[in-house]
């Protein structure tokens, strides 16, 4: 009798047959990644957290790791400037490109390094941090990323270093990565009393179908200030399924600005852990969808200790036949008294056939807390629209104004001025009001 070969996934087989890619220093972790993925597999449609996310475009195909590195076209390279003056780390199809990066004049206390710089060995603190937040057993896409990342960005801010100029990590996807997978990875560590601004950005070719599967782990030590902007502006045929872990300690202020504008299928799982008293995690997000785009934000905000503060304010603007999900959890652990948590999700549905799901959730295991949540799905205010029109303003402009006003509340909250300005531009472009002077109403 012949032995029946055990059925393994295409990703497992790919892992076995590929060249070692991610450097010797992380070989063990990568192996753990593929094993964890093999145990979990892709999430099925019956798994509660994945019920509304149609993963067929991911599971129907095997996206092999993008082996080459395309040349980034000028149009995409030019966009690197859109977020202003930054220390810049740029990756094309998952691999670091020195020519598009600018790390000149890094101040004392700031380390910004691509993983690929490390071969046999990496700094102990990176080895310790990598995967400590995003565990391979917690999430199949974290496992997949961990198995396959070939490069990444490591940002370390030393104790009491105050870094004013943002650090921008941009991932460019080119046509060469069509049908393939890219696994961006980011580790940010702010030491005690440090301050830093991070921008992580995804842009790419519009015709290209690539699976982008990023994992970002950011941790902020006591009394530090960490500002993180995540701009998902992928090409319109891209799939972006990622996770972000934010962790705050005592008296930390951690702020997140999230924009989801690109990709045909996008999902972000955002896990925020408040681990030190007096810590604060304040996240504002905006998602813009059109045509048949699908965008999904899943959040888990974990208040693990007393006296912490968290905010989640996410707004969606839906055009065309697009569909969005916001599914957010505030969890207050036993003993986490005096928790102050607010979660808000508001959706403006402009497309007649667009659909917004909104699912706020609270799980509270402490009795002295202040937790609120709100959720709305609505259309443009017809009366306001009419009023504006009776003063001579066209339907398009009036719609643009009202929509910008809706979004403005979130955009105003973004702390990095260049990000704020850029997102306003993106909004105006999206809403087709770039030609009229309504930008200043925000």
């Amino acid at each position, binding site marked *: 009798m012949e032995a029946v070969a055990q059925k393994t996934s295409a990703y497992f087989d790919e892992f076995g047959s590929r060249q070692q890619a991610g450097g010797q220093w992380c070989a063990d972790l990568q192996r753990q990644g593929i094993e964890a993925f093999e145990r979990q597999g892709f999430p099925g449609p019956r798994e509660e957290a994945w019920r509304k996310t149609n993963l067929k475009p991911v599971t129907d195909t095997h996206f092999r790791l993008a082996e080459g590195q395309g040349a980034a076209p000028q149009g995409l390279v030019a966009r690197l400037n859109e977020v202003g003056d930054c220390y810049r780390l740029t990756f094309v199809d998952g691999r670091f490109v020195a020519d598009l990066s600018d790390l000149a004049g890094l101040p004392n206390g700031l380390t910004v390094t691509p993983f690929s710089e490390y071969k046999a060995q990496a700094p102990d603190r990176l080895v310790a941090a990598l995967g400590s937040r995003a565990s391979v057993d917690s999430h199949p896409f974290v496992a997949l990323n961990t198995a396959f990342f070939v490069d990444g960005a490591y940002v370390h801010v030393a104790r009491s270093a105050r870094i004013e100029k943002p650090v921008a990590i941009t991932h460019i996807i080119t046509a060469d990565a069509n049908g393939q997978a890219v696994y961006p990875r980011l580790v940010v560590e702010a030491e005690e009393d440090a301050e830093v601004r991070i921008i992580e950005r995804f842009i790419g070719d519009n015709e290209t179908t690539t699976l982008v599967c990023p994992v970002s782990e950011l941790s902020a030590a006591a009394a530090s200030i960490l500002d993180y902007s995540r701009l998902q502006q992928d090409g319109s045929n891209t799939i972006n399924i990622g996770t972000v872990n934010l962790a705050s300690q005592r008296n930390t202020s951690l702020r997140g600005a999230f924009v989801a504008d690109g990709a045909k299928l996008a999902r972000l799982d955002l896990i925020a852990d408040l681990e030190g008293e007096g810590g604060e995690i304040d996240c504002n997000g905006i998602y813009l969808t059109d045509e048949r785009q699908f965008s999904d934000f899943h959040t888990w905000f974990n208040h693990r200790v007393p006296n912490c503060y968290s905010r989640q304010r996410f707004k969606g603007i839906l055009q065309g036949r697009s569909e969005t999900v916001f599914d957010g959890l505030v969890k207050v652990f036993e003993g986490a008294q005096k928790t102050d948590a607010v979660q808000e999700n508001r959706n403006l549905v402009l497309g007649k056939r667009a659909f917004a799901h909104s699912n706020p959730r609270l799980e509270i295991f402490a009795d002295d807390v202040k937790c609120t949540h709100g959720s709305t799905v609505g259309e443009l205010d017809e009366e*306001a629209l009419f009023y504006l*029109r*009776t003063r001579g303003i066209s*339907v398009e402009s009036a719609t643009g104004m*009202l929509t910008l006003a809706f979004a403005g509340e979130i955009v105003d909250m973004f702390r990095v001025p260049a990000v704020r300005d850029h997102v306003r531009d993106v909004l105006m472009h999206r809403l087709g009001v770039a030609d009229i*002077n309504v930008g*200043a*109403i925000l």
Partner: protein
Amino acid sequence: MALLEIRNLHVSVEGTEVLKGVDLTLDAGKVHAIMGPNGGGKSTLAKVLVGDEAYEITEGEVLYNGEDILELPPEERARMGIFLGFQYPVEIPGVSNTYFLKAAVNAIRKHHGQDEMDAMDFLQLVKERAKRVKLDESLLQRPVNDGFSGGEKKRNEIFHMSVLEPKLCILDETDSGLDIDALRIVSDGVNAMRSEERGFLVITHYQRLLDYIVPDVVHVFVDGRIVKTGDKELAKQLEVEGYAAFEAAAA
């Protein structure tokens, strides 16, 4: 040619006829007042004139400078010079009063083939007009009507009117909710704009407004129709006698 000519206008909303054959001719340079009991259809008439699509026009015509405007969208009518000061001005959070007005002014200028207004000139105009209606300057930067008091909202409507300089000014109960000082200021704002080329249609419940804005013609509006037209003495008569006689006649 009349500035505004309404001929046999019938309007329904949600299947109920609200305007039941309105005829009215307003010449440039004139002020007409419309008075009448609650629910008679005065605001409906005003909103139909500026193109509110909630109302269904079943019969009749509305000519503005001889041109039928009923097929035109609200913004077109506004650019041609038709303005409505709302009975209930709408709050628009997040859109600043000034920038909204600037977009409106420029849309109107564009319609007339004029260049956009210089930002400094615009600011000067806005400040001067705000002063005219004693609108607090802080309200210029605030979102349109957002959190304004009732009186501030009404004053803001007159302020918009004085910046946009329309030809046909329809004021729907702009006097309601104003104290006597505010009433005088608003009336002064209107009177400052009276001219040979401009017409006013002023909807009100109170004779006292007409002490300040003296009308050329007064219409009594009951149950979807104009039931009587006269001069300013008619308003005084209404103040004393009420609408009872007209309501009985209309029923």
